[in-house]
């Protein structure tokens, strides 16, 4: 995690990208507090969205843990970058 960005303190809204291993479909967005759920090539899923503060971040990570989802990385994103909104089809059928 980028130390400078993380040190904005426990009470500042930032956008985070949480990467987990395995594909999850967009229907999981609500479960993860309205984060955007995108699937990446190579078999990972990215949860992207604004996180109110450190407490909220740990709450999200707890949800990831409770599902047994392997956590790959947690990265803060600069606030002015556009979110990725493309959804890859869940099943190629």
């Amino acid at each position: 995690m980028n130390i400078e960005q993380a040190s904005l303190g426990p009470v500042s809204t930032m956008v985070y990208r949480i990467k987990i291993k395995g594909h999850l479909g967009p229907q999981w967005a609500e479960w993860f507090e309205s984060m955007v759920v995108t699937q990446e090539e190579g078999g990972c899923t990215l949860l992207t969205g604004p996180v109110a503060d450190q407490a909220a971040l740990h709450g999200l990570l707890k949800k990831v843990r409770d599902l047994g989802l392997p956590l790959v990385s947690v990265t803060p994103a600069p606030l002015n970058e556009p979110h990725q909104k493309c959804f890859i089809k869940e099943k190629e059928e």
Partner: protein
Amino acid sequence: MLSSLLTTKLFIPSLRQKIVNRRRLIEKLNDGLFSGSRLTLISASAGFGKTTVLSEWAADCDRPITWLSLDEGDNDPSRFLRYLIAALQKVSENVGSGLLSVLQTQESSSIEPILTALLNEITGIPDNFILVLDDYHLIEAKAIEDALAFLIEHLPPSMHIVIATREDPNLPLSLLRGRSQLTELRGTDLRFGPSESAEFLNEVMCLKLSAGDIAALETRTEGWIAGLQLLALSMDGHQDTASFIKSFTGSHHFVIDYLIEEVLHKQCDVVQAFLLRTSILDRICGPLCDAILGSSSSSGQEILEYLDRANLFIVPLDNERCWYRYHHLFAELLRQRFLQSCSSGNEAEGLSEYHIRASRWFEVHDLKIEAFQHAVEAKDVDRAERIIEGKGLPLHFRGAIVLILDWLKSLPATVMNSKPSLCVRYATLSLVSGQTTGVEEKLQTAEAALKAQLKGNEPDNDTRDLIGQIAAARATLALTRYEPEPMITQSNRALAYLNPDNLLARIRAIWTLGFAYQVQGDRPAARKAYVEAVELSRGSGHIRFLIVASISLGAIEALDNHLYQAVEVFKNALELAGDHPQPFENEAHLGLARIYYEWNDLEASEKHGQKSLQLARQFDPSIDRYVFCELFLSRLKLALGDTGAAAADLAETEKSVLHHSFVHRVPELAAVQVLILLRQGEVKAASLLVEKHELPLSRARVYLAQGAPAEALDVLAPVYKTMVERGWKDEQLKVMVLQVLALQAQGDKEEALLLLASTLALAEPGGFIRLFLDEGLPMGELLSKLELRGILSSYVNKLLTAFNAGEQKLEKTPKLSSAQALFEPLSPRESEVLQLIAQGFSNHQISERLFIALDTVKGHNRKIFDKLQVHKRTEAVARAHKLDLL
């Protein structure tokens, strides 16, 4: 019929009929156990079969195992301790039973003293045993983490702890690893290897897969047991396993998310709906499920049994097949799906409705905490609040304070601002758990909200009660700051507004009033309040408060010299408290110790004194009550003649007082130090000490030791006046005793005797003995004279008997036998006379030799005898030789 929550938390999960053999893991666990490690840690993500391995080990193990399944509510220290003790009692029936009753009656407890006591009791358990703590990752409270670290640090040799968790706990693991006191099973240990996967899929689940298929599936799932389990359930009865395997292994889809679809769709609609809707529950039983589903048919139990037989996600929590829960992982998945289903409008009812149904069911079945939790999930603030109110004992007495405070903290400001009752609740619960931060703010928010609601109208009874509660909370805040004035104003306000039925709050307010008066020194007012508090508590049946109020009343009685009454009150209070006294009762023991001391029953005094200290030490270390106990015990040692020990103990107390900055206790400490110094003959040091503090009585004692009785009387006169004005009878007696001694030292024997007679008259009703006994021979002398005059003969007789009995002891105490101990040095003329006495001259002869009148000689003699503390010429000579005066 309905097994209790306790049973389910202590239930050791039973083994499935067919499971994969995990021999190597069991061996590792056993090796760790027998090599003497303290802690076994099983740390791996969800779905790695932690609980299964442990239950397999439990079934196999020689040692008794006791199991505690943790949940979020166990973050409350008092609840955690209660369940811990309950688990230990499965190994040894009576362990911690005394502590349990302490926990049940106190609102919140500090953990460490209870743990220490518990550890002592565990040491008494003869068999080696194992304690399993399952789902430890749900514990987040630092208090509990610290408690566990403490437990492990001081682990009795017979006890072994196992922790199963999804994340490494906040315990000193590296330290334990370094000392080889830790056994670990981690994800890599727990996953199925290729042969285990094969065994599971083909033999346990009876699929008939080729080696190649198994390898592919094992690779894809990485041996993750939950994944393999779901896999097997999906494939069971599947027509085209080949294409299934192909699409499964070919995708990146998160394993269990993908598979659960398959498994769910295989179930009929009824079961699917059942699974989704009941997923909101942590624990499920047939009737509860029926209530949630709103179905009139009681099919819940049937479905649960079906799920159990089909091995579909469900885990039994007792032997009666009454309570179950879903496997954690699957519960999460089901909940997610249910949430989605609700929000996309597929469900008949909204999510909240199901939570409310659950809350209702739990409430009816008196499972108030669960009822509360579901009300919170339903975001039904009114319902949640109502449950907290409860009938009879409010919810927070059952160890749910943390739960409620967390909920209150989570409520948005808009909700809090519009509900003054919740703000007040927040304030009072915070105070109960010993926190003062944010309380005043919440009270102000409550007041603002009330004002807005009232809009200038007169408040109704409920509102009045709330206003009263706000005032009571402010009184408690003032109590924590030792500010008597606001304590008085706010308590009075509280009493004016509180509902007459709100006995708990009223009693508390009255007691606080009494305490405030006591702090101010207005003893009659304090007594009046305490008497009322006692009567109200008695009528209300609130034993706790009755005990506290009684003890306070007892203390006041003692201060008024009503020693017999005080003893009665203290004894009653202790009887009410029963076998399991709590920290506050130290005051009763201390009170008794002081009275027995006064009555010269030193054995009983010491017993109660020690008990008092023991209890006082159970308080939070930042509370200074134990200092009073230690000071008393020092004084007791002094009376028993053990000056050295008294001094040593006092030095320890001093260190501790300084360390904690217990500023208020320093003068009292100094007073005892003065007594010891004077006993040791260190008059100079004592006089230096009294310079530093406002201690008139000690100062008077020092003057007496220095042979300056006039100065002593000067100091004492205004104090006497003040004590009489205030009605502080105990202090009044102490002053009078010193005045008697001063008058005697001055040579005003008659005055001294008269004052002593008055003092005795005041002291007799209370039966005071040591008050006089502690002053030694001078006092004994005066008493003898009074006896001759026949004044208060039975009392005086009693005192003299005590003196004679104690004479042995008195002689042992290092009396002032060195030259510096002479209270007042002889004047030159007196020395002259003494020399002549020693040479054998009579009074007459001395008067001739010194050209002074006979009466003058006699006057000198008197002075000499007093200074040397003797009665006769021969004694005077002997003494003078001893003191090297000749």
